[in-house]
């Protein structure tokens, strides 16, 4: 419970956070970035800023491997502009202040051309000033709460309108859901997403008493009361669904309790925004069959590009069981976008690349196209998948076309007039009503 207090103080985290000091000790122990002693001038350095130890290692270490894999593939094709790419891996050890330190080290000491990294929103917020000050590029590959558009950051994960809203639409139209439980872990991503969803549901005529919002601490493991509450809430005679922004780790006991208390997907479906193939690998998925997840990518989607990616990934990791997931696809897209932009301007100079990126297109793994928008988000298709007994997803619905990411939610009164436009207005938070740029410090 004490750890809980620390969490509440440092609310702005994306997944379960540790007492920061623990991370610091680990950071000291594990700060051995394996940057080579001497870098040759004919290589381009690429920074990888993902936690390899601490609580976030569970999710982030896969992305480190993904970037290494992408660099390997690119070098096999001859690198970029005839130069080989060289990875510089650092370990910010799930410690938010250390993220900023490591980012500074990557940019000033290792002189990387671009950084792929961060998972939690708090880690992204902590490195932002560094990227602004030293003018470098960060590709951020995870779905997040939106309400941000920065010049130095490219968001290749989903904004709320590319994940949460389509999922709710699906439940409303296809499952005829009338009553909503918005359950989340208590930190910024679920709170913002639920605020957006609540406003959206009300705009669709859902009454206040048909919405139940519930927050739980990080790593919550005793779900008996909440599952019983959901059961009770769901027995009001209207079709009920749970929209879950519960963070990765707490999901396992949550789903176990759902299964044990006999809540079946056909009675009360749960649609999750943070449960992917990786999380399901840790549980017996049989009781969860039929529960839903909304993502922009599923491993089970059958396209030639995806088949090829999975095959090469499994060969690269020498593990025929290694799963792929949505943030990996976002990393893949981000990497390819950067390569294309660099080749277009024939330079790795951050200013040139940042200006070149909007408008660049690359194929995603699901047969569509990812295009960088002026607000530094990208276009993404949205898929709803049902959990299958083998821990994979069966796509039951998808948006007819790619959805453009909104940096600022149209559902929230504070942000509905804002747009991010780094092409025309050169501004991340341009107010269309007052025709003013709010500038930094948002």
């Amino acid at each position: 419970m004490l750890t809980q207090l620390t969490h509440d103080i440092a609310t702005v985290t994306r997944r379960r956070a540790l007492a920061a000091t623990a991370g610091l000790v680990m950071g000291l122990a594990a700060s051995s970035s394996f940057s080579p002693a001497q870098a040759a001038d004919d290589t381009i350095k690429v920074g990888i800023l993902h936690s390899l130890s601490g609580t976030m290692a569970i999710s982030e270490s896969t992305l480190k491997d993904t970037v290494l894999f992408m660099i390997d593939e690119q070098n096999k094709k001859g690198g970029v502009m005839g130069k080989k790419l060289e990875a510089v891996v650092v370990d910010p050890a799930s410690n938010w202040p250390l993220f900023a330190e490591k980012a500074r080290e990557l940019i000033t000491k290792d002189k990387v051309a671009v950084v792929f990294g961060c998972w939690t929103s708090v880690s992204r917020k902590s490195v932002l000033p560094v990227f602004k000050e030293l003018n470098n590029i960060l590709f951020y590959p995870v779905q997040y709460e939106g309400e941000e558009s920065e010049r130095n950051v490219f968001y290749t994960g989903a904004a709320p309108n590319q994940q949460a809203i389509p999922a709710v639409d699906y439940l409303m139209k296809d499952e005829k859901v009338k009553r909503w439980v918005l359950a989340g872990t208590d930190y910024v991503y679920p709170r913002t997403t639920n605020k957006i969803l609540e406003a959206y549901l009300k705009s669709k005529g859902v009454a206040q008493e048909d919405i139940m919002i519930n927050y739980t601490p990080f790593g919550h493991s005793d779900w008996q009361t909440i599952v019983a509450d959901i059961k009770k809430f769901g027995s009001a005679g209207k079709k009920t669904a749970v929209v879950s922004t519960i963070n990765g780790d707490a999901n396992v006991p949550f789903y176990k309790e759902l299964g044990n208390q006999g809540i079946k997907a056909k009675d009360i479906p749960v649609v999750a925004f943070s449960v992917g193939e990786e999380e399901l690998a840790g549980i017996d998925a049989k009781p969860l069959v039929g529960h839903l997840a909304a993502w922009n990518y599923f491993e089970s989607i059958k396209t030639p590009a995806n088949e090829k990616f999975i095959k090469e990934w499994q060969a690269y990791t020498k593990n025929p069981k290694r799963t792929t997931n949505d943030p990996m696809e976002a990393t893949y897209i981000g990497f390819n976008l950067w390569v294309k932009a660099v080749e277009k301007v024939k330079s790795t100079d951050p200013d040139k690349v940042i200006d070149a990126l909007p408008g660049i297109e690359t194929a995603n793994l699901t047969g569509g196209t990812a295009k960088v928008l002026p607000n530094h988000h990208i276009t993404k298709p949205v898929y709803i998948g049902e959990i299958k007994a083998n821990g994979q997803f069966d796509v039951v619905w998808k948006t007819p076309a790619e959805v453009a990411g909104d940096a600022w939610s149209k559902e929230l009164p504070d942000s509905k007039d804002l747009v991010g436009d780094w092409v025309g207005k050169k501004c991340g938070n341009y107010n269309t009503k007052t025709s003013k740029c709010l500038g930094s410090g948002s």
Partner: protein
Amino acid sequence: MFANCIDRFRALFLSILLLSCFVLPAMAGPFEDSVAKFANDEFSDTEDAVGEIASSGNPLASPIISALQDGRLSADPDSKKVFITQPDGKIIDAATGAAVDKLPDNAAAVRLNNRLRRTVDAAVGGLTLMSSDPAKRLSAAQSVLKSHEESMLPTVDSALAKETNKSTRQALAEGRAAIILFKSDASDSDKLDAVAVIKARGDQEALALLTSLDAGQPPLVAKAAASAISSIQSNLALWSTVQNAWYGLSLGSVLLLAAIGLAITFGVMGVINMAHGEMVMLGAYTTFAVQEVIRTSYPGLFDYSLLIALPLAFLVAGGIGVLIERSIIRFLYGRPLETLLATWGLSLVLQQAVRTLFGPTNREVGNPSWMSGAFEVGQITITYNRLWIFCFTLAVFAILLAMLRYTALGLEMRAVTQNRRMAASMGIATSRVDALTFGLGSGIAGIAGVALSQIDNVSPNLGQSYIIDSFMVVVFGGVGNLWGTLVGAFTLGIANKFLEPVAGAVLGKIAILVLIILFIQKRPRGLFALKGRAVEA
């Protein structure tokens, strides 16, 4: 995953075939046409097919629908043929019932989504009301209550006339009442009877039925329904108190289980052991390793995996505990700050070691069949895994207490912790006892890990979520007193669960923490303080 790959390629192949196959082969009759719809791999076609087949009266209808429900129905999109894999492994053609040697290579299971699953359940309910298997009849009767389709009424009536099994009759009567309740042309007196039947059921499902009744009811019925709703609600409120109490006991048992090892190392020995949570984690990983071996070599033993893991987890965690005591802690007795830092560092080392060895991701520890599912007592649901953990905790507690009370080692432990110099002069090898005591505490943390692997993530971070709670229980209960730990754990568990529905999970935890801080101000030695000179030493 390899098989998965093949599956994926096969499915890709299938979808290409499907695209190239525009012309449906001519079919013999309407039933065959309906069956062939399963091969289209479209949810809407599957739904049509279920409806048509269920009302066809064909003897194959029931086997087809139940095969669809269990995922045993597969279709060949190429030839539009549909097959049933029967529970005994034999395969028949769904349209004709003729036996088939083997499934065609490109046949794939017919897919379902949630909406379809509900349709299929309702259809199965209609088809199996007259089944010879009483369990099937019961579940069919229960599904009537959920679907309350008006068209089912004659079937339900005739089933009710024949039914002899008491609980199935009850379920049928309730299902019939639900149908009548929603039937627009039922008479007032019939509806009043129906309300009474539903009221007698008295659970959340009954409440759901009554509250979803539309407004256009005759005034008498509406009044009866309203009074039934309020009586069910007050009944349920009573049960929810019982439920909270049980949840509290269950949470308390988890806290106790996690804390009981610490009650030995911290409570009895006075070592602030921050690596206690990692001992729990090692126990959980031992369970994982045991299950892995069982999965690959002796799948039949899976239900016994936890029993096999228990002694192993005790040995692994206990052994490491002894090692830690001999190599680190024994040099630090009487220096609590150094002990705290050293064990904390150790906990990080152990975590990273496990992370390197087993990978950073969660590991799957399965629930044996006897730990899955739940049963109902009155209006509350009790899950088997929580119940077993509750019993297990009490058993561990009793064994530990008996050990301390009745064995020579227990006597020596108590002697050493109460007065070390006196014990030493009586000829007790105190350093050996120290090592064994620490090993015992760690070993118990290890077996706690076996139990906790059933309800929590098995990841390198498992221990961290329990360490603070464990310290809180021990401090609250009174350092040095096992009974205090027991009472402390259950008090915290129950208080937490009664606060949670009111204050929410986050505020509830904060409130508990504040209460403990206040309590410690009043009674610094916890609930059951040890008295006597030994404490002051």
